């Protein structure tokens, strides 16, 4: 499988990344190189192998369903690039 420039541009759109012409060029080459290297995984027969998402067994974490105060709105909005009247302010959508 070889990635084309158009596919790289499509992936950038999916990832919400704006790329310059040079970056599209660079990433097309580098992604192909890395994915070409990853092709060696196909040499292994894995039909009967179960995938591992976490190497250490996970446990459910449950707690009592108690009402507790959450972090204050002011504290959270302190990091907002733009806020207004207790809301995150963003460019007009419609």
């Amino acid at each position, binding site marked *: *499988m070889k*990635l084309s420039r158009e*596919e*790289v541009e499509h*992936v*950038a759109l*999916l*990832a*919400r*990344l*704006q*790329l310059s012409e040079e*970056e599209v060029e660079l*990433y097309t080459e*580098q*992604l192909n*190189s*890395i*994915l070409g*290297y*990853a*092709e*060696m*995984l*196909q040499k*292994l027969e*894995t039909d009967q*192998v*179960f*995938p*591992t*998402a*976490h*190497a*250490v*067994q*996970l*446990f*459910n*974490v449950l*707690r009592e369903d108690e009402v507790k105060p959450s*972090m204050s709105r002011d*504290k*959270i909005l*302190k*990091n*907002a*690039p*733009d806020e207004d009247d207790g809301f*995150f302010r*963003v*460019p*007009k*959508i419609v």
Partner: protein
Amino acid sequence: MTIFKSLEELHHMLVQKEISCVELTRAYLDYVDSADCWVKAFLTVTADSALTKATEIDKKITAGESLGPLEGLPMALKDNMCTEGIPTTCGSRILENFNPPYNATVTERLNAAGAVLVGKLNMDEFAMGSSTENSGYYPTANPWHLDRVPGGSSGGSAACVAAREVPFALGSDTGGSIRQPAAFCGVVGLKPTYGAVSRYGLVAFASSLDQIGPLTTNVKDNALVLNTIAGHDPKDSTSVPFVKPDYTQFLEKNVKGLKIGIPDEYFASGLNPDVAEVIQKAIRTFESLGAEVERCSLPHTEYAMPAYYIIAPAECSSNLARYDGVRYGYRAEADDMSEMFKKTREKGFGQEVKRRIMLGTYALSSGYYDAYYLKAQKVRTLIKQDFDRAFAKYDVLLSPTAPTTAYKIGEKSDPLAMYMGDVYTIPVNLAGLPAISVPAGFVDGMPVGMQLISKHFDEGTLYKAAYAFEQNTEYHLQMPALLKEVR
């Protein structure tokens, strides 16, 4: 000089009132002031809050209260661990102005233990990289040779400990990011078992691989820090409930009968012959101490790298989707939302981060998921099974930590060539195992690290082996020449 001492020695000085906590903290801050213009390990120095905390500790000492092992001792944290009200940038411009509204669990635990935070440390952006050249701010230098990289992504953590700017620091390890810089800088770095240390408040890169661990100048200090930060945390769903031992109880000089496996695949082509010789000498040291050493095989080792470079970017693309300029961090000006997201991420992220986001987005996209991501997760199972078989026979596996010593800043521009530097550390993360890098010798004046790996939650055996080696060698006692010049 007072500050070139172990945690145990510094603790003793405080208890014996040979120095006050304020004096000690000021000595470290002064030293950081003079040394860090060369090393550039720090992104933020928290002098005021450090001195305030030191004053509180001095009141305890005056009141005759007993001190815990880390109480009053300076520390620094990699800048991907949240510190309430103190900038946490992850080495990225996109988080340049981010002051977390909460502490990471490791921060809470160290604060509660009385450790004094003197600052936050430089790193490859979002922990992606092997040299700390990918920081959004500036590269950190290796204290042993200032034109060389300190390793990455915890390069700031390793360099500041090697330069004795702090007696201990925390790093995070996704594919070797504690052990490889520890090796390059000649310090002790432990990557604990996945789930042994809480990741709550650690800015996520690849969630199934990331793990926080300590970097110190010696093995005992490392065990002391792990004692404080390890243990179950209900705030982290991947944190494992286990009975935490006192890790210092494992420190003994005797390794008679310890079974050590030497994986053939870790000594194949690509390993620098001089580094190989240093590690062979280390193996002979273990033999002379009565350990039983035997060659063994981890047959799927060569598949670990390609599997990692599918799995880690896939998880990264998902984790980094949150940086959109809406709730925190940098925001680019734009007329509409879609444009704002794209411009924010374009300007906020560096090249390595964008490359991995692209790679991960592709690997997870429709039509390619099975061929790349699912396949890589299946190969991960085979790698884990290799280790399971090895640990049925051996207590510890021994290898080089990295195939070379620290290379020159700017020397490696090809991403694949750079990725190869983590070839011996990555399999450990895929299998969730604990591993430690300890100083094992020098090549042309640059440190070489030896990696020891054990089974899940068996950090005690790692410390036992590492301590025995350390106590029978003197590599950890050597210091970079830079220190003599600065002091």
